[in-house]
């Protein structure tokens, strides 16, 4: 079992003929994902790793019945691609690009809300469901394993580190979701936790957060009120000074908001097990599951 993405999910790749799009089309296929079509305007009729390419999402969906799309187009064209996908029936949308203007993202997630689309990202590594043998994203294929742990992370490489340590500790994953490092993103801790709540295969959840915003505090409120499974949280940015963006557009302690202290306190009070270093996650999960 898994959340959002299963082996049945038919996927299209927007921007499939670009370097990144083509590379990850191959990686997704190698992992077992049902990549049924690529979309690249003006490239209709070509193939990418034997996947047919169409000029429009409309054609790709009509030909393949796909309901999910992963977007690799450059940031200035991302809103166009996202709306094209959603207006043509896509209901799971993974937005890989970074540097999408925040107000474009606001438009995307607002429309997604109207249409009932789950948006992952932007500026995300994507989503992977190891037990289902499928993924939509740019994460390395070899570090995951099927198992009972759900993972939701704001950061890519850090989540790889933690997922790999879970795998090495014999703790496989139902689904790993990358929220994305931008200030405004579609799926957030709360919405992903709600999905994990509904998934019987998920027995514990790891949250990988960081400074900036208050998504962790909001998640803590939800956990306290309604989340019934064990949660281990690790948050990055303990040593970060205020006023400086730590790489992610969302990772900034601004005007006193978004500090690690308030996040860790909220999560601890909500009953989550908060660890201070990434290498402590796997052991904490193991303890809670045994």
């Amino acid at each position: 079992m898994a959340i959002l993405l299963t082996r049945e999910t038919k996927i299209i790749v927007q921007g499939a003929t670009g370097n990144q799009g083509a590379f990850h089309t191959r990686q997704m296929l190698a992992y077992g994902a049902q990549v049924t079509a690529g979309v690249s305007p003006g490239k209709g009729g070509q193939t990418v790793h034997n996947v047919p390419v169409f000029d429009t999402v409309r054609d790709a969906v009509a030909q393949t019945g796909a309901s999910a799309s992963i977007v690799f187009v450059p940031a200035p064209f991302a809103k166009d691609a996202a709306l094209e996908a959603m207006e043509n029936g896509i209901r799971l949308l993974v937005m890989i690009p970074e540097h999408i203007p925040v107000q474009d993202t606001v438009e995307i997630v607002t429309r997604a809300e109207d249409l009932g689309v789950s948006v992952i990202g932007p500026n995300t590594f994507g989503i992977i469901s190891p037990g289902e043998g499928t993924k939509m994203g740019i994460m390395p294929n070899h570090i995951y394993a099927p198992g009972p742990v759900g993972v939701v992370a704001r950061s890519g490489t850090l989540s790889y580190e933690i997922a790999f340590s879970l795998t090495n500790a014999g703790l496989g994953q139902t689904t790993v979701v990358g929220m994305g490092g931008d200030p405004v993103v579609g799926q957030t801790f709360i919405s992903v936790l709600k999905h994990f709540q509904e998934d019987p295969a998920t027995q514990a959840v790891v949250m990988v957060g960081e400074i900036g915003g208050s998504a962790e505090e909001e998640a803590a409120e939800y956990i306290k009120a309604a989340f019934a499974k064990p949660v281990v949280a690790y948050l990055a940015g303990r040593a970060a000074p205020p006023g400086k963006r730590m790489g992610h557009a969302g990772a900034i302690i601004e005007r006193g908001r978004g500090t690690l202290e308030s996040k860790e306190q909220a999560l601890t009070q909500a009953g989550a097990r908060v660890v201070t270093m990434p290498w402590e996650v796997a052991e904490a999960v193991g303890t809670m599951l045994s």
Partner: protein
Amino acid sequence: MKQYEYVAKQALAAVGIPIPAGRVVRTADDAAAAVREIGPAALKAQVLVGGRGKAGGIRFAQSPEEARAVAAAMLGMDLKGYRVQTLYAEAKLAIDQELYVSVTTDRNRKVPLIMASTAGGVEIEEVADESIVRRHVDPRVGVLPYAGRELAADLGLEGTLAREFADLVVKLYQLYQSHDAELVEINPLTVVGGHLVAADARLNIDDSALFRHREVEPIDEGSVLEQKVHAIGLAYVELDGDIAIMANGAGMAMATVDAIQHFGGRPANFLDAGGGASVGPTAQALDVLVSMKPKVIFINIFGGITRCDDVARAILQVKRTTGIPVPLVVRLVGTNEREGVALLEAEAISAYSEMAPAAERAVQLAGEGR
């Protein structure tokens, strides 16, 4: 991308929000001419640091002669590490009241947020929560005059002020949208002679949206070193320690900084070498770390998209050119790990596979830690 006050003011004026008479001043003669035109004025240093006034960045001139002298003193001065190159001469106002209003994006609600208060003139963080009126904007509707009227009512404004405030909010939201602003703030929004005037303003433009705002001149607020690394296209923040750090991915880089501190070390920087950076930029970044003359360099790589062999090649390239005259600790794991480790070992550099012992070793080598 923060904008100078005068740029923010001009943007306000362009959408029809009243601002005090003002002139951009780049020479002492400019300053004299400006005061001749607009009368007694404040000369305000155009730098992007807080507390500008207390640091001597705002002075007053009653006459053109005084303006010339004051400007001559201010232009070129060092203000909290920034060289003053531009002043903004602005007519003095007889202020009756100070309000606050801003538009920003609420990342939790994922919609624009208008905040307003009648307790303006100080940083909004210092205003009591109950004195702040908040209104989330539904992007499906935008901000129409009625929203401004409701906000004006919430603030207790009446008559002319209520009308002007409602109108101003609509225009401020237009500016927020048309400029891809992260923040547009008028503080204080002053009442002068019964009318609203934007006495000071902030405008931060979304860096990611600069491609559609070619008119915006890039301003890198960073230190010299930060600007150098930003120019390579990498995220870099200077910290005050002595263990230089490189990692791939923002989260990993943050966690690496945390790990160094965890073991008692003092991180010198945050450097995200990118989620899939190639040999060139990685080597360039490493060059910068070497140039910082840290006690130790710690490279922490989890190879996902980043290939460990590429990182190894970058390290060896820099080693050949600079010799890397400080202790180097490398943690290398993931994609093409075997090739990368082999490359390093051929040059007698050993690599850790776990993050914790590697970070601990880096701290030891720096002579720090517990």
